[in-house]
Every structure is written in structure tokens, then in C-alpha cells.
């Protein structure tokens, strides 16, 4: 069996030699032209004049396109048709593409793009949450509300009650490979597109529209991305469409890359939030009721904001069985870049809200926050299996697979939580300047796309007459190891070594109508589709061999590169050859759709998720109260990947996700100025974690227990859930700050050095 083995990434040998090709590494056909957008420097207004003479006459410029030059509807939106490729007169954010330069080199295109003289009649932009609320600038008519029980009554009746507010910053994806695409015109106007995208079918669909062709005229290929994290779910559309319309206009292959600053200014980021909370609880720390108001800045266009905001609501309970809950969600339209998908897809924001509530309640009661959390947990899967009534989420889904009681006990013991917490209290009593903090936080994350129809996948498998296998599926590889996992599934089904399976680029010409590789669902969906295709071929081979050897198909066993037919053993290659000679088809498609889903997103009821993935983390930090500087000292994690398909890949996902999550809540700060211009648009000003920021001690373990639902080899999705383990780092900083004085720190995120310093002063002074 190839599954459950810690095998390295399929392309590891290519990566370490620099031979792995990303879009920008594919050799360009001769005559390839290069593109750049001319961008708006104003956040809101109407274009009154666009003088492009200097752009057109700049060296090596071939053509310049504006919205008027586009023959068909070149819209880049994944949802709402509200994103013209080039402005049609209105300007909605600073950084919006106004015109497209086509030049002989990348540099020539970029230099020319800065030469335009654009006059914009500026209006006051809507930038902040309060400004958007004041103008009722929003998507959907009003707030969306999910409710369980009667939160209002329960709040008034609870023995204790408190309120608070927190702001949560957004996050730049900072995939190390910037957005990239190339379009190559083919005969009869067809288009072959290479794109660094998580969603080749969407690119195909949008490009087809933009060049006035049916989808069959467009083929999109994606071998790999240099990181995606959700930032390449819809944000690659503009480049691919630009390449296609430019290629159509010039008849030449066209390529487009965003340089890093443009990438950060133009593309969407994680949604920032403000969360107001009102909580009622008893003296034991049992929460009776919570009411949340979630406000998010969606930016200028709808993009994926509605399902993102939905998912924030769906994770407002995290791991806690709360009797009465009300969640009100405001999706605000603002004049900044359009916020988009980012690992967790709103889930992390919702979860931070309830984790703040737990922390605040524990502080108010003077209790250990870990204990307050455990007090409020959903009933365990074991107890539910033994007959206990399961807890129900605020959206009416029963929680029957809850693993966190056992995982939490194991983690608290393994990390010596109680002793370390006491030792930290002693240490803090003796050290006036440096303060330490420690925090535990759990994760319960729902797996499935909340748009139910997206939970489908296809695969195409060929077995050649020499026994080698060619594998294609609808998922894309962005470093998460999906191709490796799926190839392991194929090798296991045929009982052959992994090197007999060739993993090929995702290609809309091979597997059609795919969903984005997102929502952590890549291996769940595609693994199952590949399994179905392999099993079809295997059954045909078994039928044939059984007939040939006068036995029954159940006596045919595929194992160790060989096929056993009763007492007879032949190699898999010979079996393939024999099937071919007997005119048995050795090619098959496979299809999978996730079962059991039923969800009404407007009413907020049903079962949006197939199952939940769980995780638990403890982080210890130290802060300098005079400067706010801080470090992560130690992190311990136990994460539930079901029966892991590949422990090496899964642990890598957990580590990377934790660090990215901690980065979001600590050093990664996006700053827009009063005119709505992003001031942090390069790694010199926007700080993602570096090697020197990694925890000094970093212990990660998988919770190796089978998924209770029937997923591929009973594994669980692992892409997004561990991102939220990073919340423990933010809570640990809050814990350290709270040792400075009696008041609650009410730390906002990101907890930059400035924010920690501010909170520490406030805690000391607010007595």
C-alpha cells in the first residue's frame, strides 16, 4: 500500500534542482508579448480624461487597450459580474486596472504603464466600517442573521454578562510566486492558457466569455503554483483574461506577471473584521448565550465575500455548545481592493471572535481559560456513540464526531500546561519588564464547500499496455502535496509502486467542470474520484483475467506490482498487456460527489459540512512591556488528520498553517492611508514570519484516528484547519499583557509590537 506513508512531495527532486517549472518558467513561444495594467491612483471617482499618447509612443509598446477596445464582455468576477477587466469610467479603488499595455518586454510594458495622464473626478471614498455603515454601503439588502434559541432573553437572564469589541486585520497572501498567466492563440481563434490558478475551470469560463467563444475553444493548463492559499482562487482571472484578449487582438502569445508591488495593490486579501460581542455566563464559566455582530469590509466588488462571511458565521461557535446564540453579519462595500478567499475562508475570523469571548470570560472569573473552554465543549463523539444527545451548532447541524475532549487532555498533559502556567506566573511576579504568557486554543473546522454544488470532482485515468499509469484529476497543486496523495491512492488501488504513476498537469481538456482546489477539499474530492476511475479499470482487468484463468473476479488480487489470479501470478505490466490484447478498455473517468449535504444559506439551517476536522495548540510567548517586542518560545500541537494519507505532508501542512496563522494575528499588518492607498505593498513593509520568527520549540503530532465518515481511506482534510491553531499565539500574547495589571487587555489583531505596547500600558493604567 502506498497510502499512509510519509513519502516526499512528488516533485521534490525537481524543486531541489530548480528544474520544477512554474508559469513564468515555461519557455515562451517566439514573438511572445508582455502585458501590464495601468492603475488608478484614486480610490473613488469618475474618469474624465485618459490621455494615453505617451504610453502608446513609449519604447517597444505594441498596443494599448482600454475598455472601449474590448469586443466582448471581459468581466473578471467569480460571482457577480461586477468586475470589468478595465474600468468603464467609474473608479472603485486605488489600484484598479484602467488600461492594458502590450509591449515587447515585461519591463517595457511596466515602464509605459506609468506614463498615462489620467484625470479623475474624485469622490470621497468609503473606506472604514463606520463610513460604510453610515452610507448603508453593503452587499445583500441587510445583515444576514443565524440564530439558535433566544439569545436576547438568555443574555438578560444569565448570572453574569459582559460586552466587548475587537478588530481583526486582513492578510496578504504573499504566495512567493506572484500571479502569472500566458495565453497562446491557436487555429480558429481557440486559446491555450497557462495560468497559476487554483481554479482552471473558472479561468476557462471567464476567458471564453471575454473572447466570445464557447468553453470548448479554451483549454487551461496548470501544472503547479508557487503557493496559493486562496489568493489564486479568483484573483488570477484578470491576468488570464488580459492575456487572452491581448492575444486575440495581436494574434501573438501574450504573457502577464504582476510584479510584487502591483500584486499586493491590485489583488484581494483576507477580509478584515470588527466583531462586537455580548455574552451571558455563570460562575462556573458555562456560557449561556452569546450575541455577535460581525462587520467585514468586502472591498469594491462582491468576489467571494458572501460565502466567506457565511463561513465566519458558521465558525462563530468553534468548539462550544452554547444554548443561545445570535450571529449578525454585515458585508460592507468599500473602496479598497476586493477582499477574497484566504485559507480558512472566513472561518478564522469567526473563530477568533468566540475565542476572545472565552478568554474574556475566564479573565472576568479569574479562571484558567483552558478550563473554561473545556467546560463549554460539545459532547464527545464517544459519548454520543454511547447514546448521549449530540450538541447542535447555531445552524442546526448535529456534532457527532467531536474529538476535542481527548485531544485536549492529551495535549495539556504532553505540554505540561498546568506546571508551565504556574511557573510563568512566578516568573512574571519576579520580572517587571519581560512578561511571559501561555494559551491553549482548540479548532473545530467544517469540511465541505458551503455552496453544495461545488462538492464534486472528476478524474481521468489511463493504464498503458506496459502497465504505466497516467493520472489526471481536477485538483491543482500549490505545494499542499495533493498530487502526491492522489497518486498514492492510484498506486494503492492498482497495487503498484508509485513510480509507475505519472502525475500530469491539471487540464480542462481532460477533466471538465471542476471546482476550485479550495475549502481543504482537494484530496477528499479528487482522491475519491481517482479511486472510482482506478476501480473501474481494475474491475475490468479482474473480469478479463478471471475469465482467462477460469476463476471468479474476486480471486484476482492486485498487490506489490503483481496480479494474483488464483494460484497464478503475473506482473501488473503483463496483466495490462493481456487486457489490451483482449480488447479491454484501460481508460476510465471517475466521479465523486460528497454525500449527506443539505444546506440553506439564507435561513442558516441544515448540514453544510460532511464532517469536522479538529486541532489543539498551546503557545508560550514572551513580551517586552517597554517596546512591545515579542517572541514565540514554544508551541505544542495535536492535529486531527483522520487516518493520514501521508503523515510527512500533513505535518508540513500543520506547521506551515500554524506559522501563517500566527503571522496573521501578530506581525502582518496592512495599512491603508486616508486616501485609500495601500501603504504596505512589499515585503519591506509587510512582514510575514521569517525563519528567525519560528518558535524555538515546535512539537507537532497527528491525532491518528479514522474519520468517522467514509472519506478516502478515512483521512481528513488538512489544508485550512491548522491555520486557526495560530490563534493560540495571539491569546498567549494577551495572557502576557494581562500579567501587567488587573484590567482585561482587549488586544486587537494583528498584535504588532505597537498594539502590545498600547495594551500593556492600558492594562497598567486602567485600574
Amino acid at each position: 500500500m502506498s497510502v499512509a506513508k510519509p513519502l516526499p512531495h512528488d516533485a521534490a527532486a525537481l524543486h531541489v534542482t530548480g528544474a520544477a517549472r512554474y508559469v513564468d518558467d515555461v519557455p515562451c513561444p517566439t514573438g511572445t508579448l508582455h502585458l501590464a495594467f495601468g492603475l488608478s491612483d484614486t480610490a473613488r471617482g469618475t474618469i474624465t480624461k485618459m490621455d494615453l499618447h505617451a504610453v502608446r509612443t513609449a519604447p517597444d509598446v505594441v498596443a494599448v487597450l482600454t475598455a472601449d477596445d474590448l469586443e466582448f464582455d471581459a468581466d473578471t468576477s467569480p460571482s457577480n459580474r461586477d468586475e470589468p477587466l478595465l474600468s468603464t469610467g467609474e473608479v472603485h479603488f486605488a489600484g484598479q486596472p484602467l488600461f492594458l499595455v502590450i509591449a515587447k518586454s515585461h519591463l517595457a510594458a511596466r515602464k509605459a504603464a506609468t506614463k498615462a495622464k489620467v484625470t479623475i473626478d474624485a469622490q470621497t471614498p468609503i473606506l472604514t466600517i463606520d463610513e460604510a455603515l453610515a452610507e448603508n454601503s453593503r452587499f445583500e439588502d441587510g445583515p444576514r442573521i443565524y440564530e439558535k434559541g433566544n439569545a436576547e432573553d438568555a443574555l438578560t437572564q444569565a448570572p453574569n454578562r459582559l460586552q466587548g469589541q475587537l478588530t481583526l486585520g486582513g492578510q496578504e497572501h504573499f504566495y512567493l510566486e506572484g500571479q502569472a498567466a500566458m495565453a497562446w492563440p491557436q487555429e480558429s481563434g481557440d486559446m491555450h492558457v497557462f495560468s497559476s490558478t487554483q481554479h482552471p475551470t473558472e479561468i476557462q469560463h471567464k476567458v471564453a466569455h471575454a473572447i466570445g467563444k464557447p468553453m470548448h475553444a479554451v483549454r487551461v493548463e496548470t501544472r503547479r503554483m508557487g503557493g496559493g492559499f486562496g489568493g489564486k482562487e479568483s484573483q488570477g482571472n484578470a491576468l488570464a483574461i488580459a492575456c487572452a484578449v491581448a492575444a486575440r487582438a495581436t494574434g501573438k502569445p501574450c504573457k502577464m506577471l504582476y510584479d510584487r508591488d502591483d500584486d499586493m495593490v491590485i489583488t484581494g486579501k483576507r477580509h478584515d473584521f470588527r466583531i462586537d460581542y455580548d455574552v451571558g455566563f455563570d460562575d462556573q464559566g458555562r456560557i449561556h448565550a452569546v450575541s455577535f455582530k460581525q462587520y467585514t469590509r468586502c472591498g469594491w466588488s462582491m468576489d467571494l465575500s458572501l460565502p466567506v462571511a457565511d463561513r465566519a458565521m458558521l465558525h462563530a461557535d468553534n468548539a462550544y455548545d452554547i444554548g443561545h446564540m445570535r450571529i449578525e453579519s454585515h458585508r460592507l462595500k468599500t473602496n479598497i481592493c476586493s477582499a477574497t478567499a484566504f485559507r480558512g475562508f472566513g472561518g478564522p475570523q469567526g473563530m477568533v471572535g468566540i475565542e476572545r469571548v472565552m478568554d474574556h470570560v475566564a479573565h472576568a472569573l479569574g479562571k484558567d481559560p483552558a478550563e473554561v473552554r473545556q467546560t463549554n465543549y460539545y459532547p464527545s463523539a464517544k459519548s454520543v456513540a454511547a447514546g448521549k444527545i449530540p450538541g447542535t451548532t447555531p445552524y442546526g447541524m448535529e456534532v457527532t464526531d467531536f474529538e476535542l475532549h481527548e485531544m485536549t487532555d492529551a495535549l495539556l498533559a504532553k505540554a505540561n500546561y498546568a506546571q508551565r502556567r504556574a511557573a510563568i506566573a512566578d516568573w512574571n511576579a519576579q520580572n517587571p519588564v519581560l512578561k511571559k504568557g501561555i494559551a491553549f486554543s482548540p479548532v473545530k473546522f467544517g469540511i465541505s464547500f458551503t455552496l453544495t454544488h461545488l462538492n464534486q470532482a472528476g478524474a481521468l485515468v489511463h493504464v498503458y499496455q506496459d502497465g504505466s499509469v497516467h493520472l489526471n484529476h481536477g485538483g491543482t497543486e500549490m505545494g499542499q502535496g495533493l498530487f502526491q496523495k492522489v497518486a498514492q491512492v492510484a498506486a494503492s488501488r492498482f497495487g503498484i509502486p508509485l513510480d509507475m504513476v505519472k502525475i500530469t498537469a491539471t487540464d480542462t481538456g481532460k477533466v471538465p467542470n471542476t471546482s476550485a482546489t479550495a475549502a481543504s477539499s482537494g484530496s477528499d474530492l479528487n482522491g475519491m474520484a481517482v479511486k472510482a476511475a482506478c476501480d473501474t479499470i481494475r474491475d475490468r482487468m479482474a473480469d478479463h483475467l478471471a475469465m482467462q484463468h477460469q476463476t471468479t473476479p474476486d480471486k484476482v488480487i492486485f498487490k506489490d506490482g503483481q496480479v494474483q489470479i488464483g494460484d497464478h501470478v503475473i506482473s501488473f505490466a503483463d496483466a495490462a498487456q493481456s487486457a489490451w490484447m483482449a480488447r479491454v478498455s484501460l481508460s476510465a473517468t471517475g466521479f465523486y460527489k460528497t454525500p449527506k449535504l443539505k444546506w440553506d444559506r439564507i435561513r442558516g439551517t441544515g448540514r453544510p459540512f460532511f464532517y469536522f476536522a479538529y486541532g489543539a495548540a498551546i503557545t508560550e510567548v514572551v513580551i517586552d512591556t517597554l517596546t512591545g517586542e515579542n517572541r514565540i518560545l514554544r508551541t505544542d500541537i495535536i492535529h486531527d488528520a483522520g487516518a493520514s494519507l501521508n503523515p510527512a505532508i500533513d505535518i508540513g501542512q500543520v506547521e506551515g498553517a500554524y506559522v501563517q496563522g500566527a503571522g496573521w494575528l501578530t506581525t502582518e499588518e496592512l495599512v491603508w492611508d486616508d486616501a485609500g492607498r495601500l501603504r504596505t505593498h512589499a515585503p519591506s513593509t509587510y512582514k510575514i514570519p521569517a525563519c528567525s520568527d519560528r518558535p524555538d520549540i515546535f512539537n507537532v503530532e497527528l491525532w491518528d484516528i479514522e474519520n468517522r465518515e467514509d472519506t478516502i481511506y478515512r483521512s481528513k482534510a488538512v489544508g485550512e484547519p491548522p491555520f486557526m491553531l495560530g490563534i493560540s499565539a495571539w491569546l498567549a500574547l494577551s495572557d502576557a499583557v494581562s500579567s501587567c495589571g488587573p484590567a482585561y487587555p482587549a488586544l486587537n489583531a494583528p498584535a504588532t509590537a505597537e498594539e502590545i505596547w498600547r495594551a500593556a500600558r492600558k492594562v497598567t493604567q486602567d485600574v
Partner: protein
Amino acid sequence: MTKVHVTTTINGDPTEFLCEPDETLLDVLRDRLGMTGSKEGCGTGDCGACSVTLNGRLVCSCLVLGAEAEGQEIGTIEGMAQGENLHVLQKKFIEHAALQCGICTPGLLVAAKSLLEKNPDPTEEETRYWLAGNLCRCTGYDKIIRAVMDAAKEMREAA
């Protein structure tokens, strides 16, 4: 603009090329010489994806002009393996699963090799600070550090 004629050595091979006076070494490597192992993550010296060595010194090739390579020795990721034989660092990166999307990997390997040439026995902390200029958005760095420490150990034992 008149192009500059440059004679240099890349990974031990004498090489000549023509480039614009303002063209970076990174662009020359990638676009003129087809050596796409060095990557552009930022173009401003902040991410390390474009790391190469210039006469043995670790530099960001996005901050070096192609013309500056005249008469110098350049080392890139393409020169790290000897034919089919991977360098110990490369083997350890695979063994420790120290990569995910892999786009930071060439730069990290070049930087790590340059560290071990200067200091064959670095502490973990020295390694972490040396590699702090090489950003990785996927891995969280833990396995990268383990791979480098393990490679250093194996190289010391073999020396």
C-alpha cells in the same frame, strides 16, 4: 540602448551574453540564459528567492546587474548537483520534506550552502538568522532548519 557584452563563469562554465546595461542578473539568468531555477519573489532584495553566489558571496541576483558579472564567478542552483548526484543539502531537503510549493527552495539551498561553506558547524540559532532573508510562505521553516542541521552534520562527518 546599446547592449553590454559580458564574459563570465556560471557554475564553472565559461559563459558569454549580451544584456541591457540596466538589466538585472536575475533577468539575464532567467530570460537570456534559460536558467529559471533562480526565482523572483519580490525584485527588491527582501525575499531571497533569487539567491546566487558571486565569487562565493551570497547575493540577491535581483539587486545585481548582469553587467556586474563581467569576469566574476556566479553560482546558481543549477550548479549544485553534480550531474545526477544531488548535493547533501538537496538530499536532506527531500528526506525531511522541507519544501511544499518549492518556489523558495532553490534560494534557500543556495543560501544554506553558502552558510555551510563559511561555517560547517553552525548552531541552530545561527542557521535561523542566516536564513532569515529567505522567505518561505508554506512550510513554517521547521523542516528547513532540520534539513540544514542534518546536512551540516553529515558533511562534517564525511569531511
